[in-house]
């Protein structure tokens, strides 16, 4: 049976059940541009819903992409009121944690305090962990919107959250967190059952109520399990791979797809950026022609390998795609395939920032 797949992200944009969209790939392929474009199209196609774009890349670029300063709190994009952006700042998040922990340890002279701050800020994977905490927070907020949790009613619930991820390795580590944490927590729970009395004694000595600690851990475990469940549900979560038409990127994309499949995460769309489409030019430049020839070789390979995926081909433009207006113009090619004969004017027509 031949299932024709349109080379667009229409299915993602129109899928109403999606809650989590991850956009990832190798460094420098256009993840931020693609994730911003997806977020813009979602916001444009669903004007009544709220969307959130979170950058989990420690080297944040969202502010540059939208030409607007974003921070650790969600801020609305100027010109698109139903889209907010957030750049997770590990340092600020750690400060928040420290403030929360102060209720347990108020000693200003505690020498371990600052040391722990420096230490934990340098732990590999801390960015991913903090991003994950943000995810947990939003899951909680969604329950508010669904009415399942009546404790907090003033939190915004976003219909879909789009993640602009860090280059491949970081993202994969982030995606492992739910299952890793869940295993850790279940181990801890089984241990706490065995070492309960001793834990009580230690907890009592530290001034903390171990029961409270256990209940918090239980709650955390439930949240993590829920995250895990949601991330592996293709109706709720999908991963958009971004690549360019080159050997290294193709290989990395294939590896990433296989890795994601091992996590049971749905991948059905691949965006190929920076394509030259040089064969239809009136005055072709020799470098572009040569490069386009190379790109076509890998595009043909991708067509064979990814015949069951939505393979979206995006052009390389003459200027950077920055600012909401440029993103709006560029992102429409995610829904309507780029035709070099008709749409080539956009290459030199963008606003310069």
């Amino acid at each position, binding site marked *: 049976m031949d*299932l024709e797949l349109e080379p667009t992200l229409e299915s993602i944009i129109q899928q109403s059940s999606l809650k989590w969209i991850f956009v990832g790939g190798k460094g420098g392929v256009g993840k931020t541009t693609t994730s911003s474009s997806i977020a813009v199209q979602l916001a444009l196609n669903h004007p009544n819903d709220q969307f959130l774009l979170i950058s989990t890349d420690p080297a944040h670029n969202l502010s540059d992409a939208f030409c607007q300063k974003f921070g650790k709190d969600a801020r609305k994009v100027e010109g698109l009121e139903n889209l907010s952006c957030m750049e997770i700042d590990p340092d600020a998040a750690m400060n928040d944690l420290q403030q929360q922990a102060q209720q347990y340890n108020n000693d200003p002279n505690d020498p371990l305090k600052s040391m722990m701050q420096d230490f934990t800020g340098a732990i590999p994977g801390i960015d991913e962990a903090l991003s994950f905490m943000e995810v947990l927070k939003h899951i909680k907020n969604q329950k508010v919107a669904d009415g399942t949790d009546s404790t907090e009613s003033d939190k915004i619930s976003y219909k879909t959250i789009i993640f602009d991820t860090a280059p491949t390795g970081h993202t994969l580590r982030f995606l492992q967190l*739910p299952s890793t944490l869940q295993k850790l927590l279940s181990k801890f729970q089984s241990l706490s059952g065995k070492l309960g009395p001793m834990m009580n004694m230690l907890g009592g000595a530290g001034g903390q109520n171990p029961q409270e600690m256990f209940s918090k851990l239980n709650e955390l475990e439930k949240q993590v399990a829920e995250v*895990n469940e949601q991330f*592996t549900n*293709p109706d709720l979560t999908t991963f958009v791979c971004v690549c360019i038409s080159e050997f290294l990127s193709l290989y990395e994309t*294939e590896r990433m797809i*296989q890795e994601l499949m*091992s996590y049971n995460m749905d991948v059905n769309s691949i965006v190929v950026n920076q394509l030259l489409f040089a064969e239809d030019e009136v005055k072709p430049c020799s470098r572009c022609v040569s490069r386009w020839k190379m790109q076509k070789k890998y595009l043909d390979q991708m067509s064979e390998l990814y015949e*069951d995926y939505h393979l979206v081909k995006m052009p390389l433009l003459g200027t950077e795609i920055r600012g909401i207006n440029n993103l709006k113009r560029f992102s429409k090619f995610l829904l309507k395939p780029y035709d070099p004969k008709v749409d080539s004017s956009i290459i030199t027509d963008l606003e310069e920032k």
Partner: protein
Amino acid sequence: MSESKPLSAEEKKRLLRERRAAKMAGGKATNRLNTILTQGSSVKSSSVTSVLDKEDSPSPSPSGTTGTTVGSDDLPTATTTALDIHNNHDDDPDIQDISAFSSPSPDPEKLLNSTQDIDDMFTKIFSGADGATGPGEDQFAQMMKMFGQAGAGASAGAGADGPSPEDFFAGTPVQNEEEHQYQREVAAYNLYYHKQWKFRFLIIRFSFILINFFYHFLTIPTFKASSYSYIRDISYDTTTTTSFIVWFTTGELITIATYFLISMKYDLFKTTTENSIFIKILSFGSSFLPQLQQYRPLVVRCLSYYELLGIFLADLSLVVVLFGLLSIS
């Protein structure tokens, strides 16, 4: 003819998921990677294994596969975590067996029991292997002799630059002792060989000088000497003396040149220079100032020429003695 029902969007998605999973199952994931590598002319072609094909203990996704994710039976069931992948070292390079390169470790028992051997060794070193310690030699001379003997032993036939720490510390004490014994014997032989040649040339030189002298003394009546200058002035016949000197000089030149050539051929100068106090001082000093080693060839050459000069002076001394005896008569 029945019309096939058009697929709903959900069914289409499900079918596509199953197709995607089927294309990755059963080792096909690795094939896909290797196809990419081969077509991309990668150096790692055909040597990678997909994470989906690696045989790891399944780490179950806690919630399981929710709903109708990819429900077909031929799905890869082993869900691996990055930790498992990290611990799977299939792609690591082979571990090389370096046992061929490692030297056998010394027997600990032998080492423990070799204290006495080490003491004996040091005693022998400091007392002099050939027993040639003179009663008047001081400790410094003994140490110099130790270095010289060790250096001579180490460099016998090898041309090494004096003793090296390896001579003392390399290998086990038993091996070291045998090596030292050998080196000493080689040094002793070289010394004997050198002396042998020197003796031969000594015989030749002295014979020539004596023949020259007695020839002139017996055949020429005016070949006389005196400690008084007025007597020398009265009966002084320069031709006989000149004849003697010419013959003497000629003989010296020939013997010294021949000795030099033979010494160069059989490397006899090495024995002389190695036992020289100057070389020993140079070796000792170069351990603190390595730059001194650059002067070693110059010193060796000077010592060689000094030996030749010594030969000439010795012969001249004989001539002086002979003329002195002549002056008495």
